[in-house]
């Protein structure tokens, strides 16, 4: 607005990346975006570590018997691959990293409700991650990521260090969930009702419920495990009078909701991406929002389906099988609604959209193969085979990680201010899709044929499937590696990103790119959700809302950009102009080390890319 420009003069508020310099300004930051960025780098590093274990174990499985390593080393490979990927990558991937960066901006808020707790969560995550990584030189971990007793009570590997790590990671997750719950409840701007929140916020909200309610059980479980290992009190060890199956109940009481902690945020970002790149409102907003919440609640009731052959009673099996099928219903609703969103759209196959479409197909396969495992009699045959391995990789990797990559490419320009290489991005997203399917489709076949999981040695009959799978894993690994490389390179050589490169309608696209410390230089204007009628493409990767102007600094490539209504959209766009309530709630003075929003910029924001 003209008044804003007159008041602030030509000086532009520095973005959050440049507001302060030095390593200390990152380590002590209370800014949600910086914390999110630190999560992101930790997660990308963990992804490469977990991926390295995956490639090592796939290499070992190239031939029956020993290919490169012995049984014990292989057992460590799959344990560490699972533990790193689950606890360090997939669980915090979308909520802690991207959720932290994007969710408050999407709410039009300056930060999360408890910035210090947010930083504490990050350091808990870091400590937990370090403990898990430290366990590797101290003898690794060979219990499987599931830590089943009594094996984990007897294992000679440093289980104590690892479970302490898991304990801390659990608290990190709980604090993040708590923080997000309060943020979503309290920091929504006036005018944003529950049913005008972006679906991403709904998903993060559903996730946060589960994080807060389920994760304490994980903490208690690993604590009991540690006590039993340390003090030989009989809890899970049958020789001390304990019950090893009890551990499985405890473990899955957390770890089943954990699957939804992984997948629901993915569903949230996919809703955003599909809508934005189809230029269409999401179809059946309420059904999707309700299905997120119902998935979150149902996820607490189905843990027993991991234990159909564990010796659990038939009655329990029957109840858990029935409940398991109820989970299929909201998942199916979402898929149908996403497909319907494409109808009569104007579909732009940018990198995030390619990932979103991959997600649609992969999640469908992951969900449908879950039906096999929910059926009691079929699960008896398929349980603990590669069929299960393939199924949960379709959900956790094919869906969650692909959605994470889509979300990363969707919001990368917003929080880094740089565009990545579109062509490399497309090549890699296709590489991820084909590499992934080549890796895991053969695993369905060999699993149904009776190949058990966690096998170092196998019958030669399965070799062809293992070899296809290994080739696929390398295609996938290579694509992910190149993705990380070009994303990092974009900091140096990427083109400057505009304020709204994809034409998104939610509030984060009104913030400057990258956003300043408190996200908005002026209060964002709430428009109708997922309405793209008055967003117009004014250049390559540059969209503007009709009738609005922004600080010209944002549009280096196009100079003064004033958009005229090229079309005649009939909708009345502006709903309410609001001040985010949070702006008052969060006194800048409390954010001790942060620069004031109106502080002088310490660096030249407009430095050209070298």
């Amino acid at each position, binding site marked *: 607005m003209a008044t804003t420009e007159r008041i602030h003069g030509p000086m532009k508020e520095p973005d959050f990346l440049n507001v302060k310099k030095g390593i200390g300004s990152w380590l002590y930051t209370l800014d949600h975006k910086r914390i999110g960025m630190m999560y992101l780098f930790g997660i990308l590093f963990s992804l490469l570590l977990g991926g390295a274990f995956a490639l090592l174990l796939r290499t070992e499985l190239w031939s029956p018997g020993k290919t490169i390593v012995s*049984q*014990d080393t292989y057992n460590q490979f799959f344990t560490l691959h699972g533990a790193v990927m689950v606890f360090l990558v997939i669980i915090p991937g979308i909520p802690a990293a991207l959720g932290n960066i994007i969710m408050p901006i999407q709410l039009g808020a300056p930060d999360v409700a408890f910035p210090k707790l947010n930083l504490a969560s990050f350091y808990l995550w870091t400590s937990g991650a370090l403990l898990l990584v430290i366990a590797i030189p101290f003898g690794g971990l*060979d219990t499987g990521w599931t830590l*089943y007793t009594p094996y984990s009570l*007897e*294992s*000679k590997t440093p289980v104590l260090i690892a479970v302490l790590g898991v304990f801390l990671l659990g608290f990190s997750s709980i604090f993040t969930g708590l923080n997000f719950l309060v943020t979503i409840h309290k920091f929504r701007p006036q005018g944003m009702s529950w049913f005008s929140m972006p679906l991403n916020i709904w998903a993060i909200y559903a996730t946060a419920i589960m994080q807060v309610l389920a994760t304490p059980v994980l903490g208690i479980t690993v604590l009991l495990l540690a006590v039993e290992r340390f003090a030989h009190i009989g809890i899970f060890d*049958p*020789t001390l009078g304990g019950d*090893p199956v009890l551990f499985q109940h405890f473990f899955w009481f957390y770890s089943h909701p954990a699957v939804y902690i992984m997948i629901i945020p993915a569903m949230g970002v996919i809703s955003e991406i599909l809508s934005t790149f*189809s230029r269409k409102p*999401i*179809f*059946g907003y*309420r*059904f999707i929002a309700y299905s997120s919440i119902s998935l979150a609640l149902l996820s607490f009731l189905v843990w027993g389906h991991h234990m159909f*052959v*564990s*010796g659990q009673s*038939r009655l329990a*099996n029957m109840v858990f*099988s*029935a409940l398991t099928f109820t989970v299929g*219903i909201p998942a199916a*609703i979402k*898929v*149908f609604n996403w*497909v319907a969103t*494409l*109808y*009569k*759209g*104007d*579909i*732009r*196959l940018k990198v995030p959209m390619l990932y979103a479409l991959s997600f*649609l*197909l992969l999640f*469908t396969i992951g969900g*449908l193969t879950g*039906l*096999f495992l*929910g*059926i*009691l*009699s*079929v699960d*008896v*045959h398929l*349980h603990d085979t590669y069929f299960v391995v393939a199924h949960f990789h379709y959900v956790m990797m094919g869906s969650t990680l692909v959605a994470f990559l889509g979300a990363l490419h969707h919001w990368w320009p917003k929080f880094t201010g740089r565009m990545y290489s579109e062509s490399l991005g497309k090549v890699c997203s296709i590489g991820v899709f084909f590499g992934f399917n080549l890796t895991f489709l053969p695993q369905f*076949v060999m699993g*149904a*044929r*009776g190949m*058990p999981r*966690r096998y*170092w*040695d196998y019958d030669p*009959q399965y070799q062809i499937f293992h070899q296809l799978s290994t080739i696929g894993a390398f295609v996938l690994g290579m694509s992910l590696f190149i993705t990380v490389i070009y994303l990092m390179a974009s900091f140096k050589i990427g083109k400057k990103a505009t304020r709204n490169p994809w034409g998104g309608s939610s509030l984060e696209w009104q913030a400057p790119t990258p956003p300043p410390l408190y996200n908005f230089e002026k209060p964002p204007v709430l428009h109708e959700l997922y309405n*793209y009628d008055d967003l117009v493409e004014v250049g390559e990767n540059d969209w503007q809302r009709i009738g609005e102007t922004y600080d010209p600094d944002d549009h280096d490539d196009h100079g003064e950009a004033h958009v005229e209504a090229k079309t005649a959209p009939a909708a009345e766009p502006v709903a309410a102009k609001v001040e985010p309530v949070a702006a008052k709630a969060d006194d800048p003075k409390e954010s001790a080390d942060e620069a004031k929003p109106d502080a002088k910029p310490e660096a030249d924001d407009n430095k050209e890319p070298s």
Partner: protein
Amino acid sequence: MSSPRKRLSRGARVLVAIGLSASLTSILAFSLFQGTANAQPTGSAGSGTPAGSGTPTPMPMPTPTTGSGSAVLEAGSGSAAAGSGSAAAGSGSAVDTGSGSAGSGSAATVPVAPVAPVGGKPPATKITVVPCGKTPSKVIVKAGDGAREYGFSLAITDPKRDPALHPNDVEVNDIIEFQLGGSVNVIPDTSSDPNLEAPAGKTTCVSVNGEGVFGFHSSTNIRGKFIAKPWYTRLAERKVEDDNGGTFWMPRAVNSAADGSDQMFYAVFALSAFFFIAIAVAVIYLVVKYRHRPGHRAEKSATHNDALEITWTIIPTIICVFLFWYGWRSYIHVVTPPTAAVEISVTAQRWTWEFRHSNGVKDVDLHVPVGKPVRLVMTSTDVLHSFYAPVLRVKQDIIPRRYTYAWFDPQKPGTYRLNCAEYCGTNHSQMGINSEGRRAVVVVHEPGKYERYLADKQALESNMAPDALGRMLYEKKGCNACHSIDGSARIGPSFYKDFGTMVPLASGGPVKMDENYIRESVLAPQAKARPGYPASMPSFEGSLKEAEIEGIIAFIKSLK
């Protein structure tokens, strides 16, 4: 937001129609699958994999004589019954060339080894010189004067060989025929087998009436050995037949109790394929049709449609109810054994199986009769394991200090894969592997053979030479998981050529490896532990009889 439309749009109507037809199709599919109880699963016949379909054993190793003990035991039933039994089995598994002879040769065979008197104490394992005669059940060893087509140099142990093909193996009571050239004598390696001597220039036939390893060498110092094994072990060593008569997706179905499970698999497969293809086609069609291109813009359409959305909520709900219900119905069948079942006790331990039968016979392989329900009562001595035989579609975790159960009704004789499906540590993928690299299997016996197995095995176990008993225990008790017998490194020290040597101790000071040291190490493994090995060996106090400890000592002694 625009108000919900009263009337479904054209696209919505198409989607509703697809959804309804899908649910109808699936319900129809279930009723059909459920209706045809014994029908073959879809596409089973044509799509079977060729892998290993009845590869005949290259070596035309003649199979079973009934043997001395069994001949006596079978006297009542008569050889005709045995013959007809195998004929029936032959028609059942036409591809199985090897097993066709199992039993059929027995009728013609003259028992050659000394017959144990009924009720009397059976003689110890020994080698007997027998008349050669024209009989199919013999192994020919040729040597000398350039004629060395089989035996001797070929008979050197190669641990990586396919056990089913190994030329060392002979069946108990097989006739081993030495066809020796002019200047070659055969001399036994140990003085306990004097009958293994065969003079130069002559044809000599010997037979052995029990399990054991028999080393010999020629006067030209070519070494060889043969390993005598009973018929049921030879059966267990055959290539597993899981993929004979299976489909692309599933191995052969052997357990009639699990037919419902297979029908569910294929029904859900059809349903999933339908939905996946429908969704994939819809996504691709919509993406191509509404892709962005110059001049193309998004069109207005409903942002939601309650009727449509309720439809596609109800359809999955109906499908899920059906899936659950038929899953439960077929499952309750899989877990409810009939009252009259052959009961077998199972003990799983790292990393071997022990199957105990009604008459006390123990084995690492699971031998069961065809056509009779079998119930397993299972427990573990250490960590979790899981009994999993893919052809039976049976899987059940095995829990320490608790019994879990499984049952099945095997319908097709054969040798099948047996796996541990719950991660149990180092050798999880090789549960029950023996020193020859063969993993434990499930053997479904042709009619009548299971009873013979029980009797023969019991007879053999009671007259086993101490070192043969020791070898059997070495494999059955899982010693082989950690201790090699050829000097190669494993988790524990190798037994090879150790006896009588001075071995170093972790607590300092070497000790002579004698009978007492072995005894102590079996009963209290950590008392005099060797350096450089983890303290992971359990004590066998109470689980080994005195004679069995002696057997292990004799076995270790024999490894020179």
